[in-house]
């Protein structure tokens, strides 16, 4: 079976800093994989390379078998790649509902010709879209926040909304950049539940996270990155019990 996301021999350097050093990674449908390592290891950079925010120097990226190296950010998203950001990045001027309505893989409203010529079918599509947006908000138990703007919500709730926004893309690849940073209390369990359910529905999910117990709970296996290299791959337990890796993580 073709992996959902496959990274082959990916390299990237910014001047003297190497953020991806011959990285290989393959994720299948339904898999949840953790990406761990100290700050500056290249975890977020790997997400930026995969999603097209940053162009790679060498190597290939495949999405469901399709090479995406030449595609711009939006082209990759339209192939089913969805991501969240370390710093949330919701649209502050839009309501929570509008933040979700803008996020499906294909959005008929961004084409002016559609707007003029297909006015009626667009109205019908909007109703379906709204129903889907509320479904995603229900998943993170934030349906009542729909009419509010992101800055009015707590940090944790904003994280949940950004996860719901990423789920509006019905593709099968999800990259989550520190979904738990700054999240406490009931939101913690909610996020875990949602991620598990999405994996069961067939998404391949890759998570960058410093909260190791969270990674341990969710991920069957994880990769440890350091200086742009994948140093080790294995179950989370074997990775955190390895003394060498612990040294790399925490310093000597």
């Amino acid at each position, binding site marked *: 079976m073709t992996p959902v996301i496959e990274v082959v021999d990916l390299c990237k350097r910014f001047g003297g800093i190497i953020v991806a050093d011959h990285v290989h990674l393959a994720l299948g449908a339904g898999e949840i994989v953790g990406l761990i390592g100290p700050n500056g290891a290249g975890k977020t950079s790997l997400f930026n390379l995969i999603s097209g925010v940053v162009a790679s120097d060498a190597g290939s990226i495949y999405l469901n078998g399709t090479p995406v190296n030449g595609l711009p*950010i939006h082209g990759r998203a339209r192939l089913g790649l969805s991501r969240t950001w370390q710093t949330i*990045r919701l*649209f502050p001027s839009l309501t929570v509902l509008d933040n979700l309505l803008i996020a499906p893989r294909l*959005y008929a*409203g*961004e084409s002016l010709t559609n*707007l003029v010529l297909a006015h009626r079918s667009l109205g019908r599509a909007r109703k379906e879209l709204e129903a889907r947006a509320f479904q995603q908000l229900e998943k993170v138990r934030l349906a009542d926040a729909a009419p509010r703007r992101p800055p009015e919500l707590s940090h944790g709730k904003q994280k949940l909304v950004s996860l719901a926004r990423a789920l509006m893309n019905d593709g099968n690849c999800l990259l989550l950049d520190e979904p738990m940073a700054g999240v406490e209390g009931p939101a913690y369990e909610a996020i875990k539940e949602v991620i598990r359910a999405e994996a069961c529905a067939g998404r391949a999910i890759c998570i960058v996270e410093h909260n190791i117990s969270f990674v341990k709970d969710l991920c069957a296996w994880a990769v440890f990155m350091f200086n742009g290299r994948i140093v080790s791959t294995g179950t989370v337990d074997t990775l955190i019990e390895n003394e060498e890796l612990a040294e790399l993580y925490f310093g000597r």
Partner: protein
Amino acid sequence: MEYAASVLILIGIFAILATSFNLIIGYGGLMSIAHPIFFALGAYTSGLMTIHFNIPIVAGMLCGSAVALVASIALSLPSLRVSGDYLVIASIGFQLGLLQIIKNLDWTGGPGGLSNIPPLIETVGWVPAVVYIAIVLLCALAVIYFVKWLVSGDYGRAITAMRDDEEAFKALGRNAVTMKIVLFAVGSGLAGLAGGLYAHYFLFVTPEQFEILYSAGMLTMVVVGGLGTVWGPALGAILLEALPQAINFLKLPSSIMAPLQGILFTGLVLIFLFTRPQGLVGTRAAPLLPDDNGDAGAEVAMR
């Protein structure tokens, strides 16, 4: 009377120019200073077509608008594919170069300008003047309502999101480049329409009327009225067209009058930038100024 009529018509024309410029810089977030050249393309195309090919004047105006629209794509397509910043420089070259070409061609009238443009309606007497004022003001209203329709609803949601955080917008699968090219084309086409309305009332156009400096005047209208608001630019156009005219009635000697008008313009811009950067009708911080929510910047810095 004729003077008052021409002031009202200029207000209408500049309301269209400022509103369409706002679509480009306020909503599209595109830094361009080539707006006067699209105004010129509309005026010259419509003037030349009606003089030489004897086509109906309304058809000439539509051609002028279409030429401005197509020319804008020729400018934005190559520059926006490289980067947004490149557009500023490309637009300077486009504005200066094209105006030089107009100045140096025979069939455009050269530096002396294009005269004998046929009028849309005979403008002798006060009845046609009132009719023309009504036409221009109705066009201005139509343009404002068109922009209002464009920036609300499904398309408006996309515009707002793009303005808030372009990279996050793109990562959702939205094509920001196409949207910007469309906004730039629509705004430029509307400037072309304003050019047609100008040419067929004043019946005479010269290259000086479309100099690069006029983009500063249009920018002033947009900023004073409210960048990224529907009614702001039109309000700015009324204010900045009417105010200098109003002081004409003070009957000051012209040696004082000209500098006074200049001071008024620049003074207003300075006052507004310091005390009310969101403009007269804006309710929130101007979208192009950095806001206190520095999330997007932080993400970039981290890479």
